[in-house]
C-alpha cells in the first residue's frame, strides 16, 4: 500500500561519481539515452505493427469477393513480411555489403555514389557524410530532424531512404537511386526551358514542397541541385537536408558576419549600397543574357561542390533573422523558376557576399533582362514569389495562378514528363557529371575510434525502413 510516509526500508543513498574513471559518467549517460530510445522505438513499433495487422484484417473482412483461402494466404504473407522486417533488424549491413559503381554527386559533407548491393544485385544511391565535419558545423539537430522526415515520409515527392548505418567516421544513407540526375545538371545542359517545360517542373515542385510542408517541415534550401529526376522524368526532392537546410555556412550568423566585415571596411550607407547596386545593374544590362548564362554556367558546378554553398535561392527573411515560416520555400521556387526561364538565378553574382546583398535588397535587383521574353503570367508569378514574405502567394493562390492554367494537379505525376531519361541499364550514370567528379578509391575505411560524445550525437541514426522495398535487403 502506498502512503505519503516513506516505507520502512526507504534508503538515502549518497550518489557520487568519485572513484569512477572519466569515461564512466558519459558512458552511463549514453547507455541511458540509448535505452530510452530503444524503448520508445519498441513501443512505437508495437503500435504500428498492430495497426498494420488490424488494417489488413479489416480490409479482408470487408471483402466479400475474395475466397477465405486467399484471405488466409494474405495473412500468412503479412506475417512473413513482418518477420522479414524483424530479421532485417538483426542484419548488420555495412560498407562491405555494397559495391561502388561510380561516384555520381558531391555535397558538403561527403559524396553520393551509385552502389550495388552485392547479394541481391539491387542498385541504390549511397550518401556518405563525414561525422566530424557535421559536428564542426553543428548540424546535428538538423540531421536528426531531416532523417526522421525522410524515414517517415512515404511521399512520392521525397527520395526514399531505405537504410542507414554508421561507422566511427561516417554516416551512410542508402536511398533509392534516381537515374535522371538533377535539375541543375539539366539546366546546365539546356540553358533555359520553354514555358511549357518550366510549367511542368514548377508544378511538380509546388506539389513536392507542399508535401514537405504537410509533413510539418520547412525545406529552407530548395535549389536545382536538390531536385532529382526519376526514371520516368518526374521530380523528387532529395534528402532534405541530411546535409542541406542550414548546412555549410548557410546560417544567418555567417552572413551577418560577412556583412559586418564588409561594412566595417567601407561602411556604405544604405543609399550608397543601393546606388552601387544600380550601377552594377546597368553594367549587367549591357551584357546580353547569353553572356551572363555563359559566365554563370562556368561557375555553377564549382559552386555546388564548394563548402560555402550558393545562397542564390535562399529567401531574405532567413538571413535577416526575424523569424520565418514555410513561405521561404516559395521564394526559392520563384528563384528556380526565374533560372529555368532566364538561364541564371535572379541574384547571381561574382561572390556569395554580393548575392547576399542583392537578395536582401531584392527590390532593386530583381530584373528580367530585356532580351528574354516572358509571358505576362510567368513574369507575374515570378514577381509574386520573389517578394516580401507577407505578400508572397500562398499554396492555394500559387496553384490557382494563371501561369499554371491547365495543370491537372491530381494527375501530374502520371502524365508523360517532358524529358524522360533514356537509360541503357540500371547502372547507367550518363545523366551525372561523373567525369568531373573524382573517382576516388573505395572509400572510407572506418576512422578513429569514436568517443562517447560523438557517438551520442548520432544516436538513433541507424535506421531501417519498413516497406515492401525493404525485402530487397
Amino acid at each position, binding site marked *: 500500500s502506498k502512503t505519503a510516509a*516513506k*516505507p520502512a*526500508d*526507504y*534508503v538515502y*543513498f549518497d*550518489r*557520487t*561519481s568519485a*572513484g*569512477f*574513471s572519466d569515461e*564512466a*559518467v558519459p*558512458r*552511463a549517460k549514453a*547507455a*541511458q539515452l*540509448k*535505452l*530510452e530510445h*530503444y*524503448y520508445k522505438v*519498441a*513501443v512505437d513499433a*508495437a503500435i504500428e*505493427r*498492430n495497426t498494420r*495487422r488490424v488494417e489488413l484484417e479489416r480490409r479482408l473482412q470487408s471483402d466479400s469477393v475474395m475466397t477465405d483461402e486467399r484471405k488466409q494466404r494474405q*495473412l*500468412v504473407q*503479412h*506475417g*512473413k513480411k*513482418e*518477420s*522479414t522486417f*524483424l*530479421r532485417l*533488424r*538483426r*542484419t*548488420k549491413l555495412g560498407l562491405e555489403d555494397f559495391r561502388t559503381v561510380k561516384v555520381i554527386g558531391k555535397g558538403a559533407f561527403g559524396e553520393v555514389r551509385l552502389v550495388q548491393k552485392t*547479394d541481391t544485385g539491387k542498385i541504390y544511391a549511397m550518401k556518405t557524410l563525414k561525422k566530424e565535419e557535421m559536428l564542426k558545423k553543428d548540424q546535428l539537430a538538423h540531421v536528426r530532424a531531416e532523417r526522421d522526415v525522410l524515414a517517415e515520409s512515404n511521399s512520392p515527392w521525397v527520395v526514399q531512404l531505405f537504410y542507414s548505418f554508421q561507422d566511427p567516421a561516417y554516416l551512410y544513407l542508402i536511398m533509392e537511386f534516381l537515374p535522371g540526375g538533377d535539375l541543375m545538371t539539366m539546366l546546365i545542359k539546356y540553358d533555359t526551358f520553354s514555358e511549357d517545360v518550366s510549367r511542368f517542373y514548377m508544378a511538380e515542385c509546388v506539389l513536392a514542397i507542399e508535401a514537405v510542408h504537410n509533413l510539418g517541415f520547412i525545406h529552407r534550401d530548395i535549389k536545382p541541385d536538390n531536385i532529382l529526376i526519376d526514371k520516368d522524368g518526374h521530380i523528387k526532392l532529395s534528402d532534405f537536408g541530411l546535409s542541406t537546410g542550414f548546412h555549410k555556412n548557410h546560417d544567418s550568423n555567417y552572413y551577418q558576419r560577412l556583412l559586418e566585415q564588409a561594412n566595417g571596411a567601407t561602411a556604405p550607407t544604405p543609399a550608397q549600397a543601393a546606388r552601387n547596386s544600380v550601377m552594377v545593374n546597368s553594367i549587367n544590362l549591357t551584357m546580353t543574357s547569353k553572356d551572363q548564362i555563359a559566365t554563370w554556367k562556368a561557375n555553377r558546378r564549382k559552386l555546388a561542390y564548394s563548402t560555402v554553398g550558393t545562397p542564390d535561392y535562399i529567401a531574405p527573411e532567413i538571413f535577416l533573422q526575424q523569424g520565418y515560416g514555410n513561405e521561404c520555400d516559395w521564394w526559392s521556387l520563384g528563384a528556380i523558376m526565374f533560372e529555368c526561364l532566364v538561364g541564371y538565378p535572379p541574384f547571381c553574382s561574382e561572390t556569395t557576399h554580393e548575392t547576399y546583398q542583392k537578395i536582401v535588397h531584392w527590390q532593386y535587383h530583381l530584373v528580367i533582362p530585356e532580351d528574354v521574353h516572358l509571358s505576362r503570367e510567368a513574369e507575374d508569378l515570378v514577381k509574386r514569389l520573389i517578394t516580401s514574405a507577407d505578400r508572397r502567394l500562398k499554396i492555394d493562390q500559387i496553384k490557382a495562378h494563371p501561369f499554371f492554367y491547365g495543370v491537372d494537379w491530381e494527375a501530374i505525376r502520371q502524365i508523360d514528363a517532358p524529358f524522360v531519361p533514356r537509360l541503357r541499364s540500371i547502372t547507367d550514370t550518363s545523366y551525372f557529371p561523373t567525369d568531373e567528379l573524382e573517382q576516388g578509391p573505395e572509400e572510407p575505411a572506418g576512422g578513429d575510434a569514436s568517443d562517447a560524445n560523438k557517438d551520442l550525437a548520432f544516436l538513433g541514426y541507424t535506421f531501417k525502413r519498413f516497406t515492401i522495398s525493404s*525485402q530487397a535487403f
Partner: protein
Amino acid sequence: PTPTSQVSKPLYLCSPFVEAALVKGNFKTIVMLPKYVDIMEWVAVNIFDFFQNLNMFYGVISECCTQQSCPSMSAGPTLNYTWINQDRKSVQLPAPTYIDYVMTWVQNLLDDENSFPTKSGHDFPASFPSTIKHVYRQLLRVFAHIYHAHYPQILHLRSEPHFNSLFAHFLAFGREYELLDMKDIRGSSNSPTVGIGALWERWKEMGILEG
C-alpha cells in the same frame, strides 16, 4: 557478515530503488508474440536486443568488476555460478572472466549465420530453441551478478530506472517464452530465497510482472 539485518538487505530491494523504472506499466505489449509473426524471428530479435543492451550496461560498470572485487561469479551469498569448460568440467571463474566468456560466446553465436540466420532463405536450425535457452540463462546470470555486486555503482551512475526496466523486461520475456528457470534466480530450493529471486517476488507484487 553485516551487523544488522536492516543493512544486509540489498539496495535493489529497498525503496525507492526497487520501484525505479524507465518503462512504466506492464511489459505485455512489447513481449507478446505479434499475431502471424514467426516466433523464431521474434525471439531471435529480442534476445539480440537484450544482449546489446545488457552489454552496453555492463560496459559502463565493467571497470568496477575486477578479479579482485569479484573473484567469483556470484549473485548472492548462496548463489554461485560455474562455467562449463571445454572438457565439460564445471569451473569457478572470477566474474569478469566469466562474463567475458559469456559475452564473447553470445556475440559469436549472434554473428554466426548458422545459429542466427539473417540472409533470406536461411532457416533457423533445429537446435535454435535450445541455443536460445542457453543464451537466456547466461545473460540472466550476468544480470544477477550486476544486481548482487554492482548495484551501488548503478546507483552512483543514476542508471537504476534503466537497468531495472531492462531486467524486468528480460524477466517478463523469459517467463512468456519459458526460458526462465526459477532455480537460476532463487538458488537451490532448500536455501531461503535470495537476491534477484526476492526482486522477482517484489516486482510481481507490484504488478510489474505477471504471475
